[in-house]
């Protein structure tokens, strides 16, 4: 009799644990499925890519974009950012709906040739990772007004953020481009947008 009681109590306990766990999993799933809010639309801009094409706001449409501001001769956080961006570029190799855009904040040094060589050095061999440039005034405008990033002291004082832009060209979230934990969340959000893009 005592043994049967123990079995019942254990069964009940396991059932209660299961109900609790189901609730927690559901809540967590809802949290994972909630996309980051719309912050603002990226304004119109016209830049040149590292392979000589024109790149505008229109190129952000119908794709999920991860964008950052960098310059090739930077020795501060840029190598970490480039390495993290490069890892993302490799991971999403099979998904053409995701593109990576790096905007140089030192256009005087970073000519098209320099950017092309830098792209090559980072293993870029398709059009999913694009390096873009314009005159410093337009860069500053895009960084400060378009993306609301700190831009007073370019090139050295550029932001280390990775910006996630949805398929309608709207800024959805900023992530720390030097922090792995932050990038893991970027990936989760990116995957969420991809699923929504697919359905």
């Amino acid at each position, binding site marked *: 009799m005592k043994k049967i009681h123990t079995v019942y109590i254990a069964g009940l306990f396991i059932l209660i644990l*299961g109900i609790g*766990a189901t609730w927690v999993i559901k809540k*967590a799933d*809802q949290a994972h499925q909630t996309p980051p809010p719309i912050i603002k639309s990226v304004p119109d801009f016209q830049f040149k890519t590292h392979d000589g094409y024109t790149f505008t706001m229109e190129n952000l449409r119908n794709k999920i974009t991860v964008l950052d501001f960098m310059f090739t001769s930077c020795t501060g956080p840029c190598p970490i950012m480039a390495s993290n961006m490069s890892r993302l570029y490799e991971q999403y190799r099979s998904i053409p709906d995701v593109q990576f855009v790096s905007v140089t904040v030192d256009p005087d040094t970073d000519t098209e040739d320099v950017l092309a060589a830098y792209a090559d050095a980072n293993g870029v061999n398709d059009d999913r990772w694009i390096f873009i440039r314009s005159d410093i005034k337009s860069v500053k405008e895009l960084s400060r007004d378009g993306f609301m990033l700190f831009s007073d002291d370019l090139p050295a004082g550029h932001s280390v953020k990775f910006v996630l832009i949805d398929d309608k060209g709207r800024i959805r979230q*900023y992530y*720390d481009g030097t922090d792995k934990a*932050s990038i*893991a969340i970027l990936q989760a959000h*990116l995957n969420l947008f991809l*699923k929504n893009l697919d359905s």
Partner: protein
Amino acid sequence: MKYFFRFSVFTILMTYLLIFVGGLVRVSDAGMGCPDWPKCFDRWIPPTSLDQVPLEFQDQFNVVLAWIEYCNRLFGAVTGLMITITCYLAIRYYRKEIKIMVPVIGAFILTIIEGWLGGVLVDTVLNPFTITLHLLLALLIVVLLIYASLQSYYLYHKSAEVESDYPNSLKWFIYATGLIVLIEIIIGTEIRGGLEMIRNQNPLVNGIFLLRMLGPFKYMHTILGIFLVGLAYFIRKILIIESLNPSRLIIGSAQAMLGMIIVQIILGESLVFFDVKPLIQLYHMWIASLILGLCVIQYTAWETSRLN
């Protein structure tokens, strides 16, 4: 002396509950719910709204995930405290009993390492190897606690296995079962880690397809699982047919083990044929840890009968 046994049983239950909660954090993908350690968003009690979160962490804040991870840490802290008290009670009552002192102190040291490893997990953004190690240490802690607890039980109930006589072969069956369960748990965590890795690279592919991509790992896991059913069946057979006066504890644990392994195979296969459901994954891991505990119960009973 009774205090030690009662308290250690309570600590074992709490440790198992903690393994469940840890698994829950894993399946609900809330491991990075707090991006720092031991504090959560630089606070001892996690924030409930975004304006309480320091600026550098704002992109990582999700109130639900933060609180899931925080509950795990809170549970961990309480369990750690209980293991410390168990250790204190062992020193107080069983200072001369090596078979109690060594495992309890071992469990205590491993608990400190386990806590530190929790911090490493956050620092490495859930490195898969560290996750497996985190689980294995938890299992080792619970194994040591069960062994120590039973030793104190047998000290107190001297007649428990006096009339029992089990064949020597039983020991090897128990060893093999324990070892294979451990291997199964490691393969299982690898399958889960592999699944996550493929899922990250192929975010649009569904769970069942991903599981099939893992091929050989998955087959080995199933084959060893079926092998475990055979082992558990033979252990039960040895106890019923070849043993003399097997104790209720060892018979009960053998029955439970056989039942649990069959349940495990059903749960495991349902993950393959239906979908990779987090709740099933969670129970699949947790029941495996319970089976390991049953192995320790059987081994200790066998060892005690030999000494008698």
